[in-house]
């Protein structure tokens, strides 16, 4: 039996829900895989050795940290699921704009919770992560593919190509050409571009594709009326610190 764990740190449980939404996969996994740790779905969660440990959520408290470090020690393969665990998630979008103290004051006033808290951080800042499945929430199909690959001892393959790829191949009209700010050209595909299919600009929930051209995108936004800081904040929601400092990039740096 392959031992699988699903651990939640600080997040919205959306990714764990998506795992529970994989009815087919779960049914087929029963008998091959033992969920030895999955507190959202079951009691008796032994913290034993894991063949694969999926971790959702960002590291935001001392407890998160301890659980993650312990999990890493016991896991042969550790997979970060969701944007929180891969990049820090929405909660980390203003990490660079304020100190932890300011953040706490904005939420709790002068009192402080007893637990020790940190600025929300992705797993990779604390432990080594083997694979990342970003997305808010992560994509079910990619999850199933990853599980299937790992069960077979093969690494999953996710080229970081932009969301435009999937959007165009679904024959959607380009939203940018229709005046709607969209992050498709700079975002990592794999979701099947569900948002753009509905006429909502891609919000970049899966983070950056390889060598994104933010500068050109910002100048397009500017033409569409999304200007200055607002445009940068729009890009920052899910990218947090993975959004590069924009002014310093030039076109012919490697891959640019």
């Amino acid at each position: 039996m392959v031992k699988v764990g699903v651990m939640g740190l600080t997040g919205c449980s959306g990714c764990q829900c998506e795992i529970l939404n994989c009815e087919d996969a779960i049914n087929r996994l029963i008998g091959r895989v033992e969920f030895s740790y999955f507190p959202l779905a079951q009691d008796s969660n032994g913290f034993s050795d894991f063949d694969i440990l999926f971790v959702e959520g960002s590291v935001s408290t001392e407890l998160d940290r301890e659980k993650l470090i312990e999990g890493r020690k016991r896991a042969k393969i550790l997979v970060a699921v969701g944007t929180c665990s891969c990049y820090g998630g929405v909660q980390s979008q203003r990490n660079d704009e304020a100190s932890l103290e300011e953040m706490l004051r904005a939420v709790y006033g002068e009192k402080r919770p007893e637990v020790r808290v940190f600025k929300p951080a992705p797993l990779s800042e604390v432990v080594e992560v083997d694979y990342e499945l970003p997305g808010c929430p992560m994509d079910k199909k990619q999850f199933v593919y990853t599980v299937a690959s790992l069960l077979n001892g093969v690494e999953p393959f996710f080229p970081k190509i932009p969301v435009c790829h999937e959007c165009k191949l679904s024959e959607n009209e380009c939203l940018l050409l229709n005046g709607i700010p969209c992050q498709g050209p700079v975002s990592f595909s794999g979701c099947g571009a569900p948002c753009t299919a509905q006429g909502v600009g891609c919000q970049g929930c899966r983070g950056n594709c390889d060598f994104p051209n933010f500068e050109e995108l910002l100048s397009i936004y500017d033409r569409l009326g999304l200007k200055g800081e607002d445009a940068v904040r729009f890009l920052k929601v899910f990218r947090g610190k993975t959004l590069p400092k924009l002014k310093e990039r030039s076109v012919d740096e490697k891959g640019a």
Partner: protein
Amino acid sequence: MEFHIERAKVLPKANLWDFLEGLRRVSPLIAPVRRGGRVAFSEINDISDVTIDYTRTVLPPKKFLVPYRRVRFTYSTEDLSFSSTFKARQQIIFGIHSCDLHGISILDSIYLKENPDPRYLDVRKKTVLIGISCMPDDFCFCLSTGTAFPDGANWDLFLTDIGADYFVSIGSPKGDELIIELKELFRDIEREDLELYKRSTKKKKEAFRNRKLPDLERISQLIELEYESPVWEEEARRCLSCGTCTNVCPTCFCYTSVDVPDFEGKTVKRVEFTTSCQYPYYSLVAGGHYFKPTRTARFRHRYYHKFVGYPYQIEKFGCVGCGRCSAECPAEISMVETLRRLRGEDEEELREAAEQTFTDRPF
């Protein structure tokens, strides 16, 4: 005076819908359909969905010949026996514009000349291509690429709008069979029809007058000689590397393949999916080395391949002037503009060039 030609017929416009209905009785019918602001080639269930009057679809009809995602094989891990359930079906694709027909003949050369792909051949043999005439918009430059008219290509029927009727050219025995099958809808051509047909050619050419068209004379050499031109970098600065230009192109063919095992590890699917030379990973090899490391290199490569690579491989340009890559580009980069800048043409010269393309074309 008796006037009789068997290789063309006339379809009164009023009969078009009956014609489509007739086609659909023969085999599954694919035709352009309007959805929201876009037109897409789709399988037709209801003839009234068909749009005759369109300028360009987002994706070319290529998707019905080479699907963007396809399973090449399934293999068993126990005995490594490779099998494929693929079976081409009969289909009619109706309403293809001239540029796209030329696009298909480019694909024919790519897939069938060297190491022919049986799967493509199977699909192609079972597909009937019916073209229709069109008028250009600001993005079209098929006149430069020599693909504005469907001369001597690979189609079965071609409908040219001559006012009240369609002038139907018959390009193959398969096309002829369809006409015979539905002969009550057609009439023989008369002298006036031929006159109108000739005039329609002129009318389409006229529509390109006073338009900026790229001059493709010696373009292959020019691109090689201007390989280091700053134009590439200037244009590439705006490029988002989003791959739209290649994904919508009727002649692009690049793909990546991955093996996808099932949970039990018993069978594996070999999946091929369309990719683009604009993506960095396209040229990434061991040691993290990118053969096309910069956006400029990737941007330039597309032009290089279209105008230098294809001519070397298949003796035709890889561009049919359909204008999709420019019309769909989110950064509004225009192929015409880039080529024009590369040549260093100013407005005046450009108009001259446009005149010239009327008379002689490279292919």
